[in-house]
């Protein structure tokens, strides 16, 4: 794509996103956008260790959950506002990433994957059992946030979704920018060398342990921040919600579907998955079908749809993943690039 054209599209998109709240009032629309940004953040951060460095961790819930819990606990028990508490979360996440890295990076390929899963599960189970710390399986509930003040003036008291929208939008942009900078820096170059052939890279003087850990730490930081944000947005955390294997798998799937190892892959993957998931889960699609009048709510098929469409979202994940891996292993972005270059060749 021409560089100018793509820059214009980028600017227009950004403008649209920033002015979105002016034109849309539905809290539901905000909710979907916020989830979209969240998914982009975690996907893009995973990409740094997974797509660029080739280490497929399926245990990122460990960082997401840690960020979530630390932010929540500090807010609830010590009244520390979340915009400060999240940094404590980040500090803890960095330590955990280094520890996990030291254990898991000795293993290669699928063994690394399994180890990352085991570590994340140990963390989840610990969160469940260490009741004094995390309130165990009951989870932590905190739906009131302190007002955000600058110099005595209240900027927002977090009652509406608008502040959450802007925060997550900015976080998503920052994460993508960081990913871009990393990719085009020496760090990124070393990451990719390790992905292509770890031993050859080592022979060339690149220290795999250092770079793999660096990638993991960067990835973990943004995932942890996303976790902290999720916690205060939803107002409830428990081990099953923020530390489960499901979360780790979802993070990876968004990248695979969108395009692993590309900047916009996770964003595209999120755009594909999040709105559909939410629309299905909240019965919006079922309601739309009923509105067209083609199927009545009362009919057998109608009530089947109503009861079950909401649960179809994970099935759609699965189908998308299988299709993408079999036929578009570079994800939607990679596929689109191939199409584009074929089209260009056809023209030229």
């Amino acid at each position, binding site marked *: 794509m021409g560089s100018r054209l793509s820059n214009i599209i980028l600017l227009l998109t950004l403008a649209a996103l920033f002015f979105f709240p002016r034109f849309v009032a539905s809290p539901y629309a905000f909710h979907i956008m916020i989830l979209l940004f969240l998914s982009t953040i975690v996907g893009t951060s995973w990409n740094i260790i997974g797509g660029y460095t080739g280490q497929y961790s399926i245990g990122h819930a460990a960082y997401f959950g840690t960020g979530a819990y630390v932010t929540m606990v500090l807010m609830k028990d010590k009244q520390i506002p979340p915009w400060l508490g999240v940094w404590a979360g980040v500090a803890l996440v960095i330590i955990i990433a280094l520890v996990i890295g030291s254990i898991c990076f000795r293993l290669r390929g699928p063994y690394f994957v399994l180890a990352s*899963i*085991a570590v994340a599960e140990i963390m989840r189970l610990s969160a469940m059992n260490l009741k004094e710390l995390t309130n165990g399986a009951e989870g932590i509930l905190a739906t009131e946030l302190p007002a955000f003040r600058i110099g005595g003036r209240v900027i927002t008291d977090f009652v509406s979704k608008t502040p959450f929208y802007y925060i997550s939008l900015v976080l998503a942009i920052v994460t993508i920018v960081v990913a871009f900078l990393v990719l085009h820096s020496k760090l990124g170059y070393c990451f990719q060398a390790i992905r292509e052939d770890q031993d050859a890279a080592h022979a060339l003087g690149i220290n795999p342990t250092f770079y793999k850990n660096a990638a993991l730490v960067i990835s973990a930081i943004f995932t942890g921040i996303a976790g902290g944000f999720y916690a205060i947005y939803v107002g409830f955390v428990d081990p099953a919600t923020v530390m489960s294997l499901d979360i780790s798998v979802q993070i990876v799937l968004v990248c695979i579907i969108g395009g692993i190892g590309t900047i916009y892959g996770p964003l595209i993957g999120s755009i594909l998955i999040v709105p559909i998931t939410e629309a299905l889960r909240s019965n919006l699609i079922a309601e739309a079908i009923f509105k067209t009048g083609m199927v009545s709510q009362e009919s057998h098929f109608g009530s089947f749809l109503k009861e*079950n469409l909401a649960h179809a979202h994970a099935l759609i994940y699965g189908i*998308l993943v*299988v299709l993408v891996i079999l036929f578009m292993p570079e994800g939607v972005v990679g596929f689109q690039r191939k199409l584009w270059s074929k089209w260009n060749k056809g023209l030229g």
Partner: protein
Amino acid sequence: MPSGMTVFFQAVLSGVLIGGIYALIGIGMSIIFGVMRIINFAHGDILMLGMYLSYYLFALAGIDPFVSVLIIIPIMFAFGALLQKVFINRMLDALPQNQLLLTIGLGLIMSNAMMLAFTSDYKILTTSYSSASVTLAGISISEPLAISFLITAGITALLYWFLTRTDTGQAIRATAQDAQAAQLMGINVKRMGMIAFGIGGALAATAGALISPTYYIYPQVGSAFTLKAFVITVMGGMGSVVGATIGGIIIGGTESVSSVCISSGWKDVVVFAVFLLVLLFKPAGLMGKSRM
């Protein structure tokens, strides 16, 4: 026997009995890995399919779960082989991580299709012997678990005989040892892959049927078992049937004893910690290299 000891031995015995079923799951995954070098993330979901099959055979046709194993084995063998032929076969040269992700996707499809079809309500299969037990020296032995253990032992023995004494079995082992050499010797490696997946699937589903009288059945039940299967397979040595058998029993026992000595909340942590230790210090497993 002093009561502390009774409790301990009770835990060991229950653990070993459940371990037999775990072993079955582990063996299936081990064979698949041995022959195809693929970590099958959908293994637990195949187990789940076996559970549902046995539930409906019982509820609709009155077939006892242990008897239904005879029906389930051929059906799920075909299912496994089909999965391999349609999906896995295309991915033989892909990155191992991608193969793993493919199996994750397949697992998601299986568990969520079942959820759509049968909702995620828990189903409980009660047979006349679901809570029966025999008491020996103050230790009670669960009847359904004991029977499962015997059936598992039988199947494992049969499998061992198959792998060592039949031509197909030996061909499978050859493929596991060195796929290229096996191909040069005229073995149809693709077909071996299908058979391996078929066996793996049949074993996982059988384990599901064997557990069904004592557990509860719901679409997401598979993932916990998949994780256990990984642990067992790695412990026993990827590709080793004997290793997976021993691994299964060890994991079952460890789980049970941790439950008693520490608490039921921490037992899985112990299992995963053992897993990590084995991965780090003896990644080839207790039995060493790929040897069926």
